[in-house]
């Protein structure tokens, strides 16, 4: 039983990691698009964010999973569910992250941009060297919330038939007629979150060397 749960655990961690690796940078791009002075891009990002936040993630996963077939008649292989899962989680979480980045970016005083401008920094240098590091410090608590939520949201991958930890627990519970698999899975989810909380506290402390 533990062996199967551990296999599920590994897939859960994989979904979690892939989502962060994809959505953390993508969220920055979405936030920049959302704040762009180019209106069509700004509206596109607004609509995208609104849809991602306004519909269930489970529904989005299903749409990506079966959309290609129902809409275009494209038959995708059995591996498609993994890609669908990765894409669904990344674009959903990028929308949430984008709004957090945006609030952080907008909280940086104009004087920082002006000082950088007069010193001759380019736009991208200003963003990468001056703005983004300060944004990160400001958004760690809000990001932490989302990341903890993501740990638990990975269980939604079961709707695609992925054998992540929740799905394994469900199957085990049915075959063994027992609550124990659920209990174990619950404990493991909590331990993951607990470890992340410790890491986040550590990061906050590390960034605490200055305030403004």
């Amino acid at each position, binding site marked *: 039983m533990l062996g199967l749960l551990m296999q599920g655990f590994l897939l859960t961690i994989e979904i979690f990691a892939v989502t962060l690796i994809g959505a953390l940078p993508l969220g920055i791009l979405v936030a920049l698009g959302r704040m762009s002075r180019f209106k069509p891009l700004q509206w596109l990002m607004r609509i995208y964010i609104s849809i991602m936040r306004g519909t269930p993630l489970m529904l989005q996963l299903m749409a990506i999973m079966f959309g290609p077939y129902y809409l275009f008649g494209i038959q995708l292989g059995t591996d498609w569910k993994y890609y669908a899962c990765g894409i669904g989680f990344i674009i959903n979480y990028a929308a949430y992250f984008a709004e957090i980045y945006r609030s952080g970016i907008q909280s940086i*005083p104009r*004087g920082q941009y002006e000082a950088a401008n*007069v*010193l001759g*920094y380019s736009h991208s*240098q200003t963003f990468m060297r001056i703005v983004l590091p300060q944004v990160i*410090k400001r958004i760690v608590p809000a990001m932490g919330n989302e990341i903890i939520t993501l740990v638990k949201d990975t269980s939604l991958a079961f709707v695609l038939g992925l054998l992540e930890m929740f799905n394994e627990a469900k199957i085990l519970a049915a075959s063994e007629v027992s609550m124990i698999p659920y209990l174990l899975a619950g404990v493991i989810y909590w331990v993951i979150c607990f470890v992340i909380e410790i890491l986040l506290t550590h990061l906050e402390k590390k960034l605490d060397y*200055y305030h*403004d």
Partner: protein
Amino acid sequence: MTDNAAVVTLKNARKSFGENVVLKDISLQVNQGDVLAIIGPSGGGKSTLLRCLTLLETLDAGNLSYGDLVVCSTDASGRAIYGGKDVLKQAKTRFGLVFQNFNLFPHYTVMKNIIDAPIVVQKRNPAEAEEEARQLLAKMGLAGKENMVPCELSGGQQQRVAIARALALHPQVLYFDEPTSALDPELTQEVLKVIRELAAEKMTMVIVTHEMGFARDVADHLIFMDGGMVVESGRAADVINHPQHERTRSFLSKYEEN
């Protein structure tokens, strides 16, 4: 460059924010080694003038040059035409700006605040930039503070770091927008002392200030601005000691009472 060459020349500058005309036909020239003080009541357009000179705002009309580099000229229809990216980039290497509220980068140490732009923007050798930063800090009376972050420093110390940060890029002219207005009197003096020393070394500077005694002692020339116009200008000591215009007189009399 010869001793009295013009470092910055501004002619017939105009700037409005919507209906609000903030600069009406301002002209000024600052020569190598000159210190120009700008005084005037709140809302008179002093900051806007410095922001246009430092390219943080764009002029509606007027001519702006840094030495032989034409940054902005006026076309036949009277509109300001700015030079291309390269021109603006080159112009930015010629001036520095010290803000009222310092605007240091809070996440960088004092050292990094000073050396980052020289290394990243001007591609200077890091070891040399650091060596020069140490000398600048010593000159600012801040030796030993290299590894502190701005929030660990007093306002006066932060402003001196900001001055060092600007000087590290070797500007031909340094602008100050009320550099001591956010400081209490004691800290004000330490910052003014540093600016006096720069003046003694013939650093070219344009200083917006409410410190009349300082302006009289340090500046060669002085401009009194009100309502977006230069109401009176001349030798700093003359304007402050013997103002000719009624508006200048009434403005200065408020400072004598204090």
